[in-house]
């Protein structure tokens, strides 16, 4: 290619211009929506932390009450990390390279698979521990059998959900995985 041809292309290219839309109103709306979502989420976390802090502030609590408090705090901590991580991913998808966006989606699916397995075995472990400890804790109560029937039936329902988590997570993620595969094929076709 000659320099003259390149210069002619470049002058054609740079000579073009057109109107760009005014996005002030739309963008302010989006920023406000993001802000509101963040405030609502962290307000919820703050309420939960305040409630747990109240539990910790009362002296002479039984140790297992503190343990539950720590579990709730850990849960909300994990939720906050997940929330911020997803927000970061949304930002990557909005402005990042499509390969980075696909890589993020793939990482997300991997993490979900891992968490599903973690939840399955962690909850099973908790159930075993609960089944061993709970009958002793309620042995002196007025209606231990009723308490056990209620607790164990709820536990069985939750165990059903958590133990099948890898299966239903895989089922839910199958369309996303297919979409990612299609996206990768398309990027290869387009030499991206």
């Amino acid at each position: 290619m000659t320099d003259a041809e390149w210069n002619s292309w470049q002058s054609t290219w740079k000579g073009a211009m057109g109107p760009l839309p005014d996005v002030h109103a739309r963008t302010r709306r989006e920023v406000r929506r993001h802000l509101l979502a963040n405030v609502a989420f962290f307000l919820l976390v703050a309420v939960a932390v305040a409630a747990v802090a109240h539990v910790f502030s009362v002296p002479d609590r039984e140790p297992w009450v503190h343990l539950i408090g720590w579990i709730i705090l850990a849960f909300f901590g994990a939720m906050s990390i997940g929330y911020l991580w997803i927000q970061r991913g949304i930002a990557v998808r909005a402005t990042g390279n499509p390969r980075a966006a696909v890589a993020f989606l793939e990482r997300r699916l991997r993490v979900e698979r891992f968490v599903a397995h973690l939840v399955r075995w962690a909850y099973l472990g908790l159930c075993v521990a609960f089944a061993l400890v709970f009958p002793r804790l309620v042995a002196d109560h007025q209606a231990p059998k009723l308490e056990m029937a209620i607790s164990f039936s709820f536990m069985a329902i939750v165990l059903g959900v958590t133990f099948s988590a890898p299966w239903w997570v895989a089922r839910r993620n199958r369309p996303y995985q297919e979409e990612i595969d299609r996206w990768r094929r398309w990027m290869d076709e387009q030499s991206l």
Partner: protein
Amino acid sequence: MTFDELIREHGPALWRAIASYAPRGAERDDLAQDVMVAVWLALPRFRGDCSLQSFVLRIAHNRGLSHAWRRARMRTEPEPPDIPDPRPAADEQFVVNERAERFHRHLRTLPLGQREVLALALEGLPHAEIAAIAGITIENVAVRLGRARAALRRSIEQEEAA
């Protein structure tokens, strides 16, 4: 730099990047909205580790690529013909824009990897910056650029011969 100052300085380059992914009409308007909002939201994250021009063009091209993906997923027919510019033909900018629109139409026939590199090279960006934007090596930029130029020239020659 405020968003309005940025658009005053880099608006034409943004518009050209948008035009290389969407034909004139509603599709281009939608993509333009999308790009402008993405630039606005990303501006506070600009840390100065590249030029502002690279920063905004990276966003525009990435949004353009996502747009092309959505388009490819939703329909398979070729892009619709351009909607004519409503301005009078005597307008000097009209003539320039019509020539540019023809050029953009040829550009949009290239595979996206080549199109992105060629559009950035036409914008005057050095190979190193193009490589950083496209996420490829400098050698790869040179290879893609060579192929893109050849393909674009073929496309223009075919139209002239027809």
